[in-house]
């Protein structure tokens, strides 16, 4: 069983061991998936909802940031309503021994917003590297892609561009909240 160790932080809670499966910790996680309340003391609001102290909640959040469970804390913007509607998923069929290196190079391209390696599913699906390019309009996204292909020398690497035409749902992941 995993446990979360809270270090002594200033005048906050003393060192405590909170199992990550404990009910109130789970509840806090589920609430956080919905976002931070827009109240003057949002952590206190959350703390009250899960029967913890504000200091405990703050210490847990700092711990989760440090160990990477929380990878970003801030405003989560919806791009589509803002007008960033051209969303291209570019899929590549890269030799297995080159996929990691190419993934890192694509990830470093400023136009690339997401980049992952996924398994092929032959014969239907030969592509093993995915990247996303978000932009306001298709021609701009496609010219970004052309520039990347040229810069990275990918003319011979089979790839497809799958633009999204409709979002039926788009919200943050709720691992625990449903």
């Amino acid at each position, binding site marked *: 069983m995993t446990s979360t160790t809270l270090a002594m932080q200033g005048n906050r809670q003393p060192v405590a061991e909170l199992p990550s499966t404990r009910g109130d910790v789970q509840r806090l996680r589920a609430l956080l998936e919905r976002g*931070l309340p*827009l109240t003057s003391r949002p952590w206190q609001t959350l703390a009250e909802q899960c029967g913890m102290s504000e200091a405990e909640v703050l210490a847990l959040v700092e711990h989760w*940031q440090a160990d990477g469970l929380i990878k970003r804390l801030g405003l*989560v*913007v919806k791009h589509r309503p803002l007008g960033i509607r051209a969303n291209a*998923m570019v899929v590549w069929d890269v030799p297995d021994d080159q996929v990691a290196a190419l993934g890192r190079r694509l990830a*470093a391209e400023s136009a690339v917003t997401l980049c992952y*390696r996924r398994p092929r599913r032959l014969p239907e699906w030969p592509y093993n590297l995915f990247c996303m390019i978000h932009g306001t309009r298709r021609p701009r996204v496609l010219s970004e892609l052309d520039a990347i292909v040229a810069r990275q020398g990918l003319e011979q690497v089979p790839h497809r561009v799958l633009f999204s035409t409709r979002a039926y*749902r788009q*919200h943050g992941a709720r691992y625990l909240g449903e």
Partner: protein
Amino acid sequence: MPRLAHQLDALDRRLIDGYQRDLPVCERPYAAMAETLGLAESELLERLQRLQHLGVLSRVGPVFDHAKAGASLLAAVAVPEDEREAYAELINLAPGVNHNYAREHDYNLWFVMTAPDEQQLERRLDHLEETLGRPLLRLPMLEGFHIDLGFPIPWDELEDA
């Protein structure tokens, strides 16, 4: 489609640009942000509420690491184009679906399913596959090279879009 970007003033933009990450972790984070931007805390909260109403702000929140927070998987399914809406609705009814897009390909519906753990994820996918009556292409993430949608908003491009 209304030009939402035009309804956001310079302060809204600074707020978004400055706080897609590194929200201060303290008792009164909005007061700390307001001070940096030269606003009262109440004004900042009103702005955030307005951005949420406008549909620009999904939430103020943590974004959890996929792999550490639970189980998730990208899946695709090929359905007849003229029945796409109905299939998309069935997918949205399944538990744990947080993204669901139509894309231009034979595999024309793409969605992300999440669950507390791998076993439940598998069960949810099997069940949905049965409901849809079509095979799902299951594409788990094997390695993430860059996973962060907190990219800078291209305000200039939105102005002349």
